[in-house]
């Protein structure tokens, strides 16, 4: 029983929590890839920006981190729309590699701006001991973990409804399937691109806030997450939002469970190698199943 308790509290729950965070980031990456056909390397830093927007809101109004989410989402969406307008849109007709490389530049710009404004030291949303809730009298789960997982689920269900039932969602999937046919059908690519930035930026902001809430806020926090998020997106198949959700969860769990002492008393892998797990999965996927776990179309 003790063993199970440790497994759940120290490995399974943290795995699900970081999996949710990866999934939220990876959805943005994968949607942007589907619509714009390029890998957005600044996505991690967009997350960081979201975390700092929330930090500012919490500092100003003393909000609960969950209440700071909408503010972070709006501000981050606005930031993404500006970046798109001034940097990516002028390059849209160039090969997608140009966009990819320029997104590296954007990543550096965001990070440098944050360091200038907020300094390089770590910040926290909440200080002191965190409340937790007991389940079935034994499992003790910190409240913020419950919030994080529940919010992530709500957002993913909302995204699912949007993609399946709304005109915008169908148009987004159409552009991701075939941009030229979408134009012939009367769908304005420009509007869809903007909507994708708003959705991807909002989800990244939430991921950033959760990441900061579960640890600390620091200028490199998002950049460090780019690897597991890309791994999640590739695992699910680039351009497939549902794949990214599953991919995020798989990567999060794989990272945490890899350091569980499965055989005997020692950790299977030292926790220091966590990022190596995501990297290994990503490389293996690129070699054997480049279209993702669920196969299928990626041109």
């Amino acid at each position, binding site marked *: 029983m003790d063993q199970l308790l440790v497994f759940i509290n120290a490995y399974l729950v943290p795995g699900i929590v970081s999996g949710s965070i990866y999934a939220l980031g990876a959805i943005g990456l994968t949607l942007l890839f589907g619509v714009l056909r390029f890998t957005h390397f600044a996505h991690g830093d967009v997350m960081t920006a979201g975390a700092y927007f929330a930090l500012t809101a919490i500092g100003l109004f003393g909000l609960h981190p969950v209440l700071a989410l909408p503010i972070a989402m709006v501000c981050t969406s606005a930031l993404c729309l500006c970046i798109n307008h001034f940097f990516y849109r002028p390059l849209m007709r160039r090969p997608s590699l140009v966009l990819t490389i320029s997104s590296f530049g954007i990543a550096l710009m965001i990070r440098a701006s944050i360091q200038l404004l907020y300094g390089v030291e770590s910040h926290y949303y909440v200080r002191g001991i965190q409340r937790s809730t007991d389940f079935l009298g034994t499992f003790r789960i910190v409240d913020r973990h419950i919030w994080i997982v529940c919010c992530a689920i709500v957002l993913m269900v909302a995204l699912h409804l949007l993609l399946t039932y709304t005109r915008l969602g*169908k148009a987004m*999937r159409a552009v991701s*399937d075939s941009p030229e046919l979408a*134009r*012939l*059908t009367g*769908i304005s690519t420009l509007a869809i691109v903007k909507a994708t930035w708003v959705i991807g930026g909002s989800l990244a902001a939430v991921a950033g806030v959760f990441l900061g809430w579960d640890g600390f806020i620091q200028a490199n926090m998002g950049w460090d997450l780019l690897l597991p998020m890309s791994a999640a997106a590739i695992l699910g198949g680039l351009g497939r939002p549902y794949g990214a959700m599953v991919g995020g969860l798989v990567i999060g769990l794989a990272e945490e469970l890899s350091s569980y002492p499965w055989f005997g008393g020692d950790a299977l892998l030292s926790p220091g190698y966590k990022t190596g797990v995501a990297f290994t999965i990503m490389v293996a996927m690129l070699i054997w199943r480049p279209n993702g776990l669920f196969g299928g179309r990626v041109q």
Partner: protein
Amino acid sequence: MSLLSLEGIVAGYGPDVPILHGVNLHLDAGEIVAIVGPNGAGKSTAMKAAFGLLNIHEGRIRMGDEDVTGKSPESIVRKGVSFVPQTENIFPSLTVQENLELGGYFSPRSHVRAGLERIYTLFPPLRDKRYQKSGCLSGGQRQMVAMGRALMPDPTLMLLDEPTAGLSPKYAEEIFSLVLGINANGTSVLMVEQNARQALMISNRGYVLVDGRNRHEGPGNDLVRDREVAEMFLGG
């Protein structure tokens, strides 16, 4: 006044190398017009030019009394013109019904519902497959989805690029009678066809395009009977 006219179109996929070297063609309300010619003649290119997908270097494109040269495809489709391209003419990861709904992307909701009913009556096999991914359908059914999508807004003019390509003779026959039906319902049709003889026979007029230039034109039946056209382009 012509529904659509291309006047001395010089156009290409980039700003320099032209593929069309001065194409002239027009289509009057109520007509079926066929464009035929050898592979690589620029037939598809001419259609894409009409739909605003290319760089027009010289010449004018008019729809009715309006000059639409340089207009985007998004705005041309809103003028009641639909286009079914030769390749990539469905959204494979979307269901049949979603494909059709997108055909009515800019129409009011009630039109979309009525349109779906109209399309399912026209293509009964699609009704049973409406919740299936269109990418999983057979070639003939994909073509139905593509044409259904284009018919959703009830267009005044429809551009069809090789609607019978890759289909069995029986299916091709069905497509041709469908085109006649669409036309009888008041939609003018401009089509490119590899099955040139059949296409010309159901068309009011036809154009033979070679190397990005007009080579012959005339009433469909005359072109079929013309000895030179028959020998060069209709396989004797």
